[in-house]
């Protein structure tokens, strides 16, 4: 009985020309988004890889320089596009692509795509994730809004029920039928995405990437399932197809257009972001209280010198076996980095608090849950961006301290002229960035994961109870 209802839904949907046209359109957009996404993320990745290789080459073959000059010459970190980010650009277009890494100074990540675009980019980007998150729910609504109301309007519901089927059984049967239909639309695109990913990476596709892809697909399937059940439940609660449709479209608008924007804006209003200028000034102020790397007249630098003289039992700094300039510089770098990191953590803490509002809103809105999880799997979310920034800062610190160490050990006190050959710079490994593993990403989205699972349970239990109470006459 139940199977035959599911089969009936499946077949009659496929015979509905309007639905077939709409799903072909969605599928077409999905395929286009896959290809376009892959193309643009490939272009960006190429651009950044070339730039990274160029700066690495420049660093290793740099002219003979004093180590502190080299510390200011510095290096760049270009954020590589992760292999999966072509599915979901996420924040990638709004985050900077390059960080200049030099001594004493933590620079911002500059040149985001958004800064190079007119306000057109604010209308959204054509990605696979966009089609899956926004358009497929609409297709599902269109597919399911009449699930019960149509049977009520034609009077077939009474006949079905008189055959001894419960409303709950009818609902599950219809859900099964609709799920099959949705799978038919989504599968080709997901297969293509998977295929392209394999084609791009060849056989050395890391298991981590595969896990991310599988989870990415799994989250979306759960999301679609939630929407299917939700639509069927709403249909059961209505007497007329048109009101059921309008209610569902209203839910869609609220979930996919209004709540995401409102929650992000609310977070921004609730937690004030300090300006970069203010933050830099605060860092400067706090560092000035400590040791200033550039100012050897500073009293604390004098104290450090005295300590060293006492320790090595000599009378003047020039007799020291180490170069005090390098040591002062290293201590200064350590100090300023510590202060900067404290402030940066406070800043990112503020951002996370702002984002928390959206994450909590996922309990009201499955769209937000899947959006965060999707970005997480595509490594284009905030935690991944932060991870990159932290890695770049870590590299910057080690680069600066490595050069300070060279100055302290290989150069004499007050030697500002000696230049070391480029062989010295080859001792430094170039900046490389590895995307963190999938479990790291999942750990950062536990809240969204919980919300998605909760939604799944909610529609299956409470939703079905509502279906059971559907008004038949």
């Amino acid at each position: 009985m139940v199977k035959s209802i599911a089969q009936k839904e499946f077949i009659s949907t496929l015979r509905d020309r309007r639905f077939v046209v709409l799903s072909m359109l969605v599928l077409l957009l999905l395929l286009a988004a896959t290809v376009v996404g892959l193309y643009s993320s490939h272009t960006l990745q190429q651009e950044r890889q070339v730039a990274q290789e160029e700066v690495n080459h420049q660093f290793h073959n740099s002219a003979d320089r004093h180590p502190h000059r080299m510390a200011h010459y510095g290096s760049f970190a270009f954020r590589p596009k992760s292999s999966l980010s072509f599915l979901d650009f996420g924040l990638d277009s709004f985050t900077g692509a390059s960080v200049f890494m030099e001594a004493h100074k933590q620079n911002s990540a500059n040149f985001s795509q958004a800064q190079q675009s007119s306000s057109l980019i604010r209308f959204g980007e054509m990605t696979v994730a966009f089609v899956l998150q926004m358009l497929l729910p609409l297709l599902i609504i269109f597919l399911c809004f009449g699930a019960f109301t149509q049977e009520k309007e034609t009077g077939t519901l009474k006949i079905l029920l008189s055959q001894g089927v419960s409303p709950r059984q009818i609902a599950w049967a219809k859900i099964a039928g609709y799920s099959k239909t949705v799978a038919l639309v989504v599968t080709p695109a997901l297969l293509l995405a998977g295929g392209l990913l394999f084609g791009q990476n060849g056989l050395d596709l890391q298991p981590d990437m595969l896990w991310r892809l599988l989870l990415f697909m799994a989250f979306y399937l759960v999301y679609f399932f939630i929407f299917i059940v939700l639509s069927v439940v709403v249909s059961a609660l209505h007497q007329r197809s048109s009101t059921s449709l309008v209610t569902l479209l209203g839910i869609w608008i609220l979930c996919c257009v209004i709540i995401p924007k409102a929650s992000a804006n609310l977070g921004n209003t609730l937690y004030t972001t300090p300006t970069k200028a203010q933050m830099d000034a605060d860092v400067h102020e706090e560092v000035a209280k400590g040791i200033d790397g550039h100012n050897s007249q500073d009293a604390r630098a004098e104290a450090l010198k005295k300590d060293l003289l006492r320790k090595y039992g000599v009378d003047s700094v020039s007799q020291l076996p180490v170069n005090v300039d390098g040591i002062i510089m290293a201590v200064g770098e350590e100090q300023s980095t510590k202060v900067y990191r404290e402030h940066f953590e406070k800043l990112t803490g503020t951002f996370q608090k702002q984002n928390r509002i959206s994450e909590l809103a996922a309990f009201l809105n499955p769209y937000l849950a899947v959006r965060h999880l999707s970005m997480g799997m595509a490594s284009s979310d905030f935690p991944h961006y932060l991870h990159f920034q932290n890695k770049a800062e870590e590299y910057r610190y080690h680069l600066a301290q490595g050069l300070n160490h060279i100055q302290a050990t290989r150069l004499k006190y007050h030697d500002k002229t000696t230049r070391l050959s480029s062989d010295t710079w080859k001792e430094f490994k170039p900046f490389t960035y590895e995307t963190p593993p999938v479990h790291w990403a999942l750990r950062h989205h536990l809240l969204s994961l919980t919300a998605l699972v909760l939604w799944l349970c909610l529609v299956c239990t409470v939703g079905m109870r509502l279906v059971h109470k559907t008004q038949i006459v």
Partner: protein
Amino acid sequence: MKKFWILIKYEWLNFRADKGLLILVTLTLLAGLYGIYYGTTEVQRQQQNIAGLEKLTEHNVEELKAKYPEGTDAGDIGYYHSTFAVHHPDSWASLALGQRDVNPYYIKLRLLNLQSQLYDTENINPQKVLAGNFDLSFVLVYLFPLLIIGLCFNILSIEKEQGTLPLLLSQPISLPLIVGAKLTFRMLVVLGLGLLLSILAMIWGKVLPDGRVALWLGVVMLYCFFWFAVAFLVAALQKNSAFNAVTLLGVWLLLTIVIPALLNVYVSIKQPIPQALALTIQQREVVHGGWDKPKRETMDKFFALYPQWRDTTEIKERFVWRWYYAFHHLGDVAVQDLATQYKQTLLARHELVQKLNVLSVPVNVQGIFNAMAGSDLPSYVQFLQSATRYHDSLREFYYPFLFRQITFTPADFAREPRHSFSSAPDVDSAVNGFVKLLGSVVVVFGAGLLLFRWKTASVK
């Protein structure tokens, strides 16, 4: 005409009794009020932050005055002293924040080479800017069409579906009169709401009351007319309510999301911006290469640009500031072409969007709003140019100290140039967009009229 008003009156009675419609209108009103609140607080916050920058500069000056009470080489000041180039929002920015949250609205500047400072970004939460601004322009561009769709999707079909059309048409009134009255009533509601919110936002945001008031209100009205025309066109197809709702939402989705997203892809492929990364890399090479070049060569190059300082003394020392700043400036000169190209490409992107926006009315209208509020890409590029000129004036202020080796005294700080830039509205492109919008309205409404006449009304 009397019957027209009778119909309007009963539309009002119907509307008043329909909870769904009341909720829809109330929600839009609340969203509009929130949008106004958000826009104004955001602009206020930016203004406060800009005001805060002045304090930071003062603080920095005080610190340097304390450090060098007797004055010092201007090179020290140039290195340790920072000022800000600031981009004040136009008074209209609170209505359409545009790209002001993505693009920095101030740049911290030292006398060092400009290109390594010009593109530094502000602390922005990428997740927030991804979500976009919930300002009045968002409410008008995105949500008002949805309100219009919600009010009009069943404008004719409901009369058939609830079976009132036969009785209605057995009275001496024509179908166009009925549809006209229903549309007029809804227009009164929607335009009333749109104009009320706009005027409220203008008062709340204390905008400069110039010709833009009329332009803004005109655009709001035309944009609403456009969506009414779309609803009318779909109603003229004489399909059922469900079909109309799906079709109208489909059109909305196409115009406000799918076409803009596709345009964005097209624009970024058609007009790539490879200069940015090249610029940063090259600028660093030249500046740092400056340390290793013979001073003579550097200075000759510099004097070619600034012959007025040519007769200053030959540099014999290992390090002097004027040489340092000279090669910093040469770093800027070396990438000048790239920097110009970068700005030109940004503007070319914007121009391309301006050309393509006929394909999507919402993109056009958002463009008009942003142009009026001076919050789009061209304003940012103008700000970059203004900041560049400011950096030039700073250099010219310090060069006499550096090249004539005059001590920079604490009193000299007062004479240092300060920067202020307010984005100017681009009224021309707004008016241009207005004309395009008018064209779109006429085309869609005309198509609706033709279809309405061509399709004979069926009563059931």
